């Protein structure tokens, strides 16, 4: 990956309900296609299952106990230490660094600026319709508008006639076009908002998931021996208009079974809507001819409970809340297509594409998002930041996560063996 560009895609609240992670229900052809050209980590975990602490952790390469950010209300550079970030490191090494959408959590925790100008070469882009995210934009059965949790929408009726993630994709595509003609290497981070609540997405995606195909979680009850301190009462869900109307008891609920199915249906639909955005973005990377010179990283800030253990959010240490998708596409390393000039990521329509694909390489090693800093540095051929000493409050550049590139090799060998066994024909293998 020496000298390559980096496209860093981070999704909000996405647990690995993806075809490439073995989910049989979801339609995620574009992310699966990316996985088929990537090394996929099956056991990747965030350091804390809430947005700001998780993002600051993996963007600085330090754990929450070092960033001292466990909530949303402090900026690590003044509250803990003036730590470097991944994009800052790339910027200081000659890259043009750009942020589109939700990369840092907005607000105090990124100094109301997404850490600009430390981390970014140009001011971060936020979609103009982001501000309507929590407005009453969901049409109820009575025809009135509500701030619902379950919120399939007619996009043409939305403020501005669009949705934030659609705008982010458009801006990222515009930036790719600009970078096409520049000689400078780039680090483009694109942060998608969905499937974070509210589950607001174009209503046509509901068609992919008929309600009769939607099951409850395999364990929708609060486990008998779960210590009360481990349980989260999903307050943000309770505050939405449609959930409020259900008068669910506090703290354990449960939600009615039918409503549980509606939430799960909409989460899946929002994932397919996200998949479409990722597909359009990767297709644009092909269009500008940069697929063979750009490392693509795909991950999420943390997972989300879909009713398991009687929970409906993140805010816990359960695997469903902390486990994330993580994959790296490195031209010439995870795929042999570098330099061939063909299309690597043709857009796949989730409404018509049905074939699943298996990843080229897969690693079952336990890995952590805090390792992203050193891993990306190594993949791009930059010097890997040193390991942090025991106390690193005054160390600007170090990392608490070891590079996981060492796991790529064994995965490559497995992929090679698969090929030798006749399993490189993904359709056959699937």
């Amino acid at each position: 990956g020496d000298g390559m560009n980096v496209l860093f895609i981070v999704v909000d609240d996405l647990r690995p309900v993806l075809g490439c992670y073995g989910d049989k229900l979801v339609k995620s052809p574009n992310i699966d296609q990316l996985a088929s050209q990537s090394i996929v980590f099956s056991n990747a975990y965030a350091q804390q299952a809430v947005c700001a602490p998780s993002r600051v952790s993996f963007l600085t390469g330090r754990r929450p106990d070092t960033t001292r950010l466990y909530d949303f209300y402090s900026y690590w550079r003044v509250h803990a230490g003036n730590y470097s970030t991944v994009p800052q490191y790339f910027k200081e090494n000659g890259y043009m660094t750009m942020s589109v959408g939700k990369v840092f959590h907005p607000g105090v925790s990124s100094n109301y600026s997404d850490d600009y100008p430390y981390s970014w070469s140009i001011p971060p882009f936020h979609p103009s319709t982001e501000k309507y995210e929590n407005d009453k934009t969901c049409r109820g059965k009575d025809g009135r508008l509500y701030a619902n949790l379950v919120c399939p929408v007619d996009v043409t009726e939305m403020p501005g006639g669009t949705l934030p993630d659609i705008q982010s994709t458009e801006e990222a595509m515009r930036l790719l076009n600009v970078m096409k003609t520049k000689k400078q290497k780039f680090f483009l981070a694109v942060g998608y908002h969905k499937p974070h609540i509210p589950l607001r997405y174009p209503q046509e995606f509901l068609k992919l998931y008929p309600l009769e195909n939607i099951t409850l979680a395999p364990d929708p009850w609060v486990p008998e021996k779960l210590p009360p301190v481990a349980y989260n009462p999903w307050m943000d869900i309770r505050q939405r208009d449609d959930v409020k109307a259900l008068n669910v008891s506090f703290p354990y609920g449960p939600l009615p079974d039918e409503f549980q199915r509606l939430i799960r249906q909409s989460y899946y639909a929002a994932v397919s809507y996200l998949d479409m955005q990722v597909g359009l973005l990767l297709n644009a990377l092909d269009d500008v001819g940069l697929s063979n010179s750009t490392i693509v990283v795909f991950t999420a800030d943390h997972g989300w409970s879909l009713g398991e253990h009687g929970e409906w959010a993140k805010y816990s240490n359960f695997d469903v809340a902390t486990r994330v998708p993580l994959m790296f596409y490195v031209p010439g390393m995870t795929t042999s297509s570098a330099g061939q000039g063909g299309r690597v990521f043709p857009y796949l329509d989730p409404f018509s594409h049905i074939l699943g694909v298996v990843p080229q390489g897969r690693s079952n090693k336990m890995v952590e998002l805090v390792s992203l800093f050193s891993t990306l540095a190594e993949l791009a051929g930059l010097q890997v930041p040193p390991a942090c000493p025991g106390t690193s409050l005054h160390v600007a550049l170090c990392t608490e996560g070891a590079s996981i590139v060492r796991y790529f090799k064994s995965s490559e060998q497995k992929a090679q063996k698969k090929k030798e066994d006749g399993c490189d024909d993904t359709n056959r293998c699937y």
Partner: protein
Amino acid sequence: KEESVAFSQYPRPADIPQWNSDKPKLKEIRIMGYSMRTIDYRYTVWVRFNPENFSADFEDVHAGELYIMETDPNQDNNVYNNTLHSHLLKKIV
């Protein structure tokens, strides 16, 4: 043998769920749940946490969780207090 491990943590304001259990502010944090997971298990201890000096007191354990992934992949059966697994717990600690 080299065993890969992943850590996570989550703060709580109290031992029982309350309105700010999901997102306690720093000054409200009293307990921190530290998790260590391998392919085989997830082990979590909820310990006293001091938000003034960011210190965790592992001598003051409020609760614990231990899930054995082979038999309980969904993490529904907490065996932290099960003496059958005391050997594994000792090894972890």
